[in-house]
């Protein structure tokens, strides 16, 4: 059980604040670091990896600081975002180099095993300069696995992968998580986080905007206006009736086919609409929340 803790962490460059007073407790399993580009995700990961000193606060792994503590790298595997590798090496040479630098007892074997895990054995003898984006990504992951790290940090790991590679990488990370490893990956793509992260940490403009599992983040947002698409036997009359309800903020006819409703309270509206419909003999065909996805949660966080 390896735990990664960020306590009151800030990082500024001159007058620019990149990370602002962030507290996180990250345990085993997959944690998604979600935020738009430039939100400070990479700065956070750099500090988690001990590469960058926090301007204030501490980052620890099981209570030991990651900063100025090179022994910590025996526990950390880092997959950086940039594609530049030592691309004059073959994949096998590159992964083996990482194993040797980690002082793994049998670097050759460890490299082979790691390459096997990411299914790159067939291309391992080719120079990295001939690899596709997805292959580079996988060989980078292999290079981070040679020493069997308890903590795996990945910066935008799904960048440049095709859907099959992406699915494979997601399965791989899920498998590592099941082995009890602590995995943190950053992403600005919601579906990625949605699919595999047990825990989501939302970072916006250097601030820790929200934290929790997916549902918890959504619950945090229930006091904001929710959009619904409603289809019924009589949209116009239903709209008038719904407007009388305090939890409904607005209703708008979308042509003759549907009704768009904005409601204040998620729970309240779910109870109101069947009651109103039944009492007035209106048949409801469809009620679809149009912004349930993290996408809308996210844009809400960004815009607020």
């Amino acid at each position: 059980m390896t735990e990664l803790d960020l306590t009151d962490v800030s990082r500024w460059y001159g007058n620019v604040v990149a990370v602002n007073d962030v507290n996180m407790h990250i345990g085993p399993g997959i944690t998604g670091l979600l935020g738009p580009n430039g939100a400070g995700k990479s700065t956070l990961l750099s500090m988690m990896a001990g590469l960058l000193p926090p301007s204030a606060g501490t980052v620890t792994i099981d209570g030991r600081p990651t900063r100025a503590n090179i022994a910590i790298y025996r526990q950390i595997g880092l997959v950086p975002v940039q594609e530049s590798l030592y691309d004059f090496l073959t994949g096998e040479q590159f992964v083996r180099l990482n194993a040797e630098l980690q002082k793994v007892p049998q670097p050759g074997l460890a490299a082979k095993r790691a390459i096997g895990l990411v299914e790159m054995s067939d291309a391992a003898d080719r120079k990295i300069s001939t690899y596709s984006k997805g292959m580079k990504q996988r060989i980078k992951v292999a290079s981070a696995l040679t020493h069997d790290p308890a903590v795996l940090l990945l910066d935008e790991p799904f960048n440049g992968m095709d859907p099959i590679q992406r699915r494979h990488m997601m399965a791989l990370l899920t498998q590592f998580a099941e082995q009890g490893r602590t995995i943190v990956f950053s992403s600005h793509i919601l579906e990625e986080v949605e699919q595999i992260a047990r825990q989501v940490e939302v970072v916006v403009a250097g601030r820790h905007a929200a934290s929790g599992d997916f549902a918890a983040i959504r619950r945090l947002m229930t006091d904001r206006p929710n959009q619904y698409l409603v289809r019924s036997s009589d949209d116009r009359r239903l709209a008038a009736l719904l407007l009388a309800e305090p939890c409904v903020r607005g209703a708008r006819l979308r042509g003759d086919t549907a009704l768009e409703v904005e409601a204040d309270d998620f729970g309240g509206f779910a109870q109101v609409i069947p009651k109103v419909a039944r009492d007035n003999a209106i048949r409801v065909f469809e009620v679809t929340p149009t912004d349930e996805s993290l996408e809308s949660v996210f844009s809400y966080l960004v815009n607020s």
Partner: protein
Amino acid sequence: MNGPILRLGLRSLFGRARAWLMIAMPVIMLALAAVMRLTAGSGGLDPNSAENFLRIFGIGIAVPVVALIATTTLINSEFDDGSIIYLLTKPVSRVTIIASKAVIVLGAGVLFGAAMMLVAGFIMVGGSDQVAVGALIGGVVSTVAYVGIFTALATTMKRSVVGCLLFWLLWESTVSALFSPVKWLSARAWGNAVVQHIADAAGDGKPGVPLPYAVLAAIVALAAGVALAGQRLASMTISEE
């Protein structure tokens, strides 16, 4: 020193086409030396001319160019493209990383710069007047200084390749020729002084700085460059946001 980083450095330096650029320098120098010897006539080449040539072409051009190519390959490019991160996230100290790289750069400078100056010296005048030996030692001293200076520039400047090039062209080649006190702060002047102190043929002038000063200054430049680079390595982000 770290074995895997040394091996990686060798592969990086010699596994790519740019190695030929580095080899081209001494080849040109040896060819010119041979031409000078052949055109010198029956009396052989004047040791003073040989010494001048070794200082101007060897220390003035070959040594800095070889050091520049090696430093940019092993340090600048890895910093600029971020691949250094794979070395930084390992249980290896920062100074060991930079020192291992500096050793390879130094080795390349000695092999393709200083040692070839020795050979060029022998081609031109054989062992006479200690010209060849002086060139070797002067070449080593100036290589040591250049490696330190380029390493420091490589890790602290944004456009570091341009920075190193400008340092060589402006400071070492132009400013130091115009303002005499610059000799106290010039890798080229230190190397030149060592050649002039050791060789019996003094070439076209007196050594600019005392021998112990030149040697010490080069060593200080190297140590300071490595220390500064190690310091700089202590703060890296994994991507530029």
